[in-house]
């Protein structure tokens, strides 16, 4: 596993020490996970949820969230009531 590449995909900066340490640890973890190959799962349907519930739709109508101002107060960077972000498109 290329730790540096995967970390970049996940947008996580790692220092050299972490890269080294994680590589060793992931080797052990992946080797352990490979034990799953002992199980024949050819005819098994995977499950993604334990409740048998299907999509639980509500009417597509806007609902007022009463504490919207508190969300804005939590913004690390803002101008007026807008969230300020770095340039997204070059």
């Amino acid at each position, binding site marked *: 596993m290329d730790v540096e590449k*995967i970390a970049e995909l996940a947008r996580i900066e790692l220092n050299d020490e972490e890269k080294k340490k994680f590589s060793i640890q992931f080797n052990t973890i992946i080797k352990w*996970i490979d034990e*799953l190959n002992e199980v024949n*799962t050819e005819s098994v349907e995977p499950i993604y949820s*334990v409740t048998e519930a299907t999509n639980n739709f509500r009417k597509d109508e806007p609902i007022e969230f009463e504490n919207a101002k508190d969300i804005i107060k*939590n913004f690390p960077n803002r101008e007026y009531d807008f969230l300020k972000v770095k340039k*997204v498109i070059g």
Partner: protein
Amino acid sequence: MDIVERTSIYINRIKERDSELKAFIEIWENDAIESAKKIEKKEKKGRLYPMVAAIKDNMLLYGKEITAGSKILKGHLSTYTATAVKRLIDEDAVIIGRTNMDEFAMGSSNENSSYFITRNPLNKDYVPGGSSGGSAAAVASDLCDFSLGSDTGGSIRQPASFCGIYGLKPTYGTVSRYGLIAFASGLDQIGPFAKNIEDIKKVYDVIKGYDKNDSTTYKEFKQVKSKKLSEMKIGIIDFDYNGCDEDVIKNFEEAVLRISKKVSNVTKIKIPHLKYAISSYYIIASSEASSNLARFDSIKYGKYEDGADLESVYMKNRGNGFGAEVKRRIILGTYALSAGYYDEYYLKAQKIRALVKRDFEESFKNVDILMIPTTPTTAFKIGEKIDNPLSMYLNDIFTVPVNLAGIAALSAPYGKDRKNLPSSVQFIANKFCEEYLFESARGLL
């Protein structure tokens, strides 16, 4: 004693004991006293009166800081109240503070908190377990009547076991996750810690139920009514003793003997895929975490450090904001979901999950309750496993299968080891059968 007096006593006790124990990240002294006074004046008191509660630092309480034990959320104030917490308040419980936890609920020792390490109340050199270690330690050292934790792979039951108290992981979908900071949404479940079965039941009855804000809660479900212990069929899970502490096994066998005296129908049961639950769990939980934790980019909330461009802002803030275990899990999850590896890891793990679930369904055709130790060992020393993530993961070997199957389990203390640390029995029941858990755990008293 009324609720105002009880709240003050707990606050004083926290001030006395918690500088060493470190179960709490923050206590809300003034708010707790104020709400206690209001409750005391009410003519008709709620079902939880006069109880004082603590909540894990991943459950929202409007206006209060919440961080999930992480640096990345420092300073974030809750913008609403979690449904489970609101239900406690509606039934007149006083919320006294937020408890320490492994960052984003990832860990089995509380050593992954970005604040400090919570100590085991029974021996300060040992971990309290995790990830809800603060909630467990707070109850075990009488700093509150009960607390809430969250359990994704054992994070309520394992610390309950390490601290010698009761901890319930309810059926998935019975307690709302609205306002719980998500780790692995398909596995996370909120549940109570307490010193006795009656309090566990009381709190569970208050927090359970449908919530329109959590679409995975069951709209209508009937709690299965209990039957007498003597009429129950009990299955003892035939598990691999390798890696289990001999004192844990001895205590477990004694517990089985005690139950066997009260129940005529006790059999051994095999859960054929139990062994594979743990590795499949770490793939599924890490994959869900890598997706859930993508929102923590320091742009919408939390601590922000500036960088040259958007990409470097993400890299820097997530690199500095997350601790080692959270990074490991996000990376592992990203890997398991990445092109070329999805079938080999994620899909394979979800198939194993289906097999584990089926094993349990089969077993519940023949028995009402399953028994297995909660953990393979008692509490370990602080620092002992921190550099060996795999050995830390393996501590959850008996708890994760329950989350994969979405069923219910209760950890009940039974016996001590040679170091005088507690060990526990885990009672497992089919979904909606929490009453069976309470009844069977009473059989150990």
